[in-house]
């Protein structure tokens, strides 16, 4: 029922229900309920006027700002670390002390080139730095050093799982600004320059995306590649990756683009999706009412899932771009690029292919593992301890990640369950000392404790969950069962009853209170009866 008429899927009517359900499941809690209310509200108006949203498609381009994982900042030797004490990582140049000059950090260039190579882009051997001027308290120099006219990287593409290729226009290096906090102390704005001057790579896509889901997929895929190549932590919640989303709408089938609005600094994949959905509805509502869409810069209000205006076209800033006279053109050699290409870490799709090929994982499982941050590291560490790859992959992508996702502070990086612990559970499973059900209980117990210490064997014996596999004990058990049920033994020997094995198994299980290892019991019975 929920908003059946409101769907933006590029895949068309057949997927309606699925898309809406997917949208609801991936949210949790109050936010989702509120969104659903908003959606329902819009849906009711939409139903009244027919499928008006269906007639339009969104045209989306995204600019991603990713913080490079360099040791120091782009133009100063101050350390580039997240969340240190305020104003503890500020070099003279970051604070724009008079007379200081920018000094380019080669590591940042290497990371940006690596990012370019990961998307099959052209690396421009000659690029230049420009100043982008605007006035704000968290930008001490009064300008940001960026690469407006001659970026380091041109072209490239990102292949999405839905088969679409999103073209990348360019990538360039630029400085991040500091952080400002208004109102934390009454009457004051607080400025923290730790982040000021940190290296960013800005990745600009062509407006190739046609739905909010596609845009979300693009962001997730990009995030994943940046993470796996070690270019960026790509953690949108922490701010190491941010998106500016450009949305325009047009009637399906039209060739011309509608008026574009930009939603700045969206810091979550689900927020990207919601921002686009809101903008689509807003634009369509305006157009259907005969009102022109104004070109605006907006920001996303996460608490209300709406976008709000930030600047109108009249308020647009003139950045007065000019080549930065303190920095000569950046010239890199083919050898420099080749060395980085040779050292390029495995891309997520390559890793997934390898898992399928060498470890015989199912494709979905392999993709699940490479898509989750730190999952492939965790998985490969677990594999070193010997368990079966397919079993390990299934347990990580289903059971363990189930716990991690349900936990607000859960993460595979410093997981409540260590790789050794998980391996011990898998080992007991493989030797059949425990059943699947018991294994899940043990894992839950481990996660609950969160001390990364107790191995499966200890927990199983402490809780009395381990199955008995000792042959002497099993034999004794079987013999006891057989003694108590002589008639059944006779009917089996005479061949008149085929269900005797099942009966004996049942009895043995009952007698052992489910503690006997089933296969061992079966084997034992087979021996004894014959």
């Amino acid at each position, binding site marked *: 029922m929920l908003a059946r008429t409101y769907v933006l899927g590029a895949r068309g009517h057949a997927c309606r229900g699925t898309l809406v359900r997917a949208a609801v499941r991936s949210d949790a809690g109050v936010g989702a309920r509120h969104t659903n209310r908003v959606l329902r509200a819009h849906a009711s108006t939409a139903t009244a006027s027919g499928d008006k949203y269906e007639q339009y498609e969104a045209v989306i381009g995204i600019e991603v700002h990713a913080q490079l994982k360099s040791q120091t900042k782009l133009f100063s030797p101050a350390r580039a670390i997240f969340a240190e004490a305020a104003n503890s990582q500020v070099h003279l140049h970051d604070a724009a002390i*008079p*007379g*200081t*000059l*920018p000094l380019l950090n080669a590591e940042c260039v290497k990371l940006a080139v690596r990012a370019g190579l990961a998307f099959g882009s052209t690396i421009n051997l000659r690029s230049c730095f420009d100043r982008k001027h605007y006035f704000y308290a968290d930008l001490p120099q009064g300008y940001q050093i960026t690469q407006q006219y001659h970026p380091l990287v041109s072209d490239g593409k990102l292949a999405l799982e839905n088969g679409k290729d999103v073209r990348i226009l360019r990538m360039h290096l630029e400085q991040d600004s500091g952080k400002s906090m208004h109102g934390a102390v009454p009457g004051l704005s607080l400025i923290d320059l730790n982040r000021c001057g940190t290296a960013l790579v800005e990745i600009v896509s062509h407006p190739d995306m046609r739905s909010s889901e596609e845009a979300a997929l693009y962001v997730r895929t990009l995030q994943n590649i940046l993470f796996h190549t070690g270019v960026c932590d790509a953690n949108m919640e922490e701010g190491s990756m941010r998106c500016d989303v450009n949305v325009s709408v047009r009637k399906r089938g039209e060739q011309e683009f509608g008026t574009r609005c930009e939603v700045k600094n969206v810091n979550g994949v689900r927020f990207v999706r919601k921002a686009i959905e809101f903008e689509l509805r807003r634009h369509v509502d305006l157009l259907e009412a005969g009102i022109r869409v104004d070109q605006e810069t907006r920001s996303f209000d996460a608490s209300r899932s709406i976008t709000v205006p930030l600047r109108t076209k009249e308020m647009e800033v003139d950045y007065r771009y000019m080549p930065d*006279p*303190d*920095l000569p053109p950046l010239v890199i050699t083919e050898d420099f690029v080749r060395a980085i290409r040779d050292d390029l870490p495995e891309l997520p799709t390559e890793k997934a292919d390898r898992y399928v090929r060498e470890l015989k994982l199912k494709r979905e499982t392999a993709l699940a593992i490479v898509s989750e941050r730190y999952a492939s590291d965790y998985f490969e560490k677990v594999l070193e301890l010997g368990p079966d790859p397919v079993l390990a992959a299934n347990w990580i992508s289903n059971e363990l990640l189930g716990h991690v996702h349900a936990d607000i502070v859960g993460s595979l990086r410093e997981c409540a369950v260590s790789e050794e612990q998980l391996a011990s559970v898998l080992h007991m499973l493989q030797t059949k000392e425990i059943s699947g059900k018991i294994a899940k209980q043990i894992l839950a117990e481990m996660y609950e404790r969160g001390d990364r210490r107790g191995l499966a064997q200890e927990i199983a014996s402490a809780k009395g969950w381990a199955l008995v596999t000792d042959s002497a004990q099993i034999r004794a058990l079987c013999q006891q069962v057989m003694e108590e049920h002589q008639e059944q033994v006779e009917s089996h020997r005479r061949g008149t009853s085929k269900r005797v094995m099942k009966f004996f198994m049942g009895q043995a299980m009952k007698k052992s209170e489910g503690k006997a290892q089933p296969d061992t019991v079966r084997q034992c019975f087979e021996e004894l009866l014959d």
Partner: protein
Amino acid sequence: QSKRMAHLNAYILPPSEAPAMQREKANRNAGISGSLDGIPIAVKDGFCTRDMRTSAASAMLKDFYPCYDATVVERLRGAGALICGKTNMDEFAMGAFNTHSNHGPVLSPWSDAEERVSGGSSGGSAAAVASYQCYAALGSDTGGSVRIPAAYCGIVGFKPSYGMCSRFGLIAYASSLDCPAVLAREVGDVKEVFDVIRGEDVNDPTTAPSEDVETSACGGDRPIRVGIPSEYNVEELSGEMR
């Protein structure tokens, strides 16, 4: 000498207040031996000096005490020079007569009954050198800011090619044109100071790598030809100049 010449207003921070001069008597036998050992050199107030206020003749920086030395200043100190004060200038080097200063204008030592401008923006440096208040001085030349006051004050002003001297620590005016430059009474003195401050600096990406600098040998028996653009021959030029 500076006290007698104080009316020229050449200094923002005069020798009487310069820490190096105060220490000079104590350090006379300190054992530093460089090519400029013990020689008093004035520095234009646009260069950052660690132990002296640097204001670029502006009220905006009247309380700016840099925590570092400009590279050219560091090199002077490294050769044993005594930084004897910070000289007056046009505010942020924006001027050609040294009349736009928070500290007041600089008078040319050649002023008589009529007060004459010293030229700028490195007017304080030129006036200090011309009135024997220091051996030589650092200035900065963007569009003539050392050559003009040198000419007005009758001394030698030398602007090296852009990239010869490090701008690290020089408060920027036009970053693609600013050059640290030298003023002195004799050409030989200028060369002595220039040889100390010149050269590539890791802190300034626009300095030319040493291997890229060609110096042509001149002097000796080969005559020098000096070119003067014919456009300089303007009506206002005085007869003796022409």
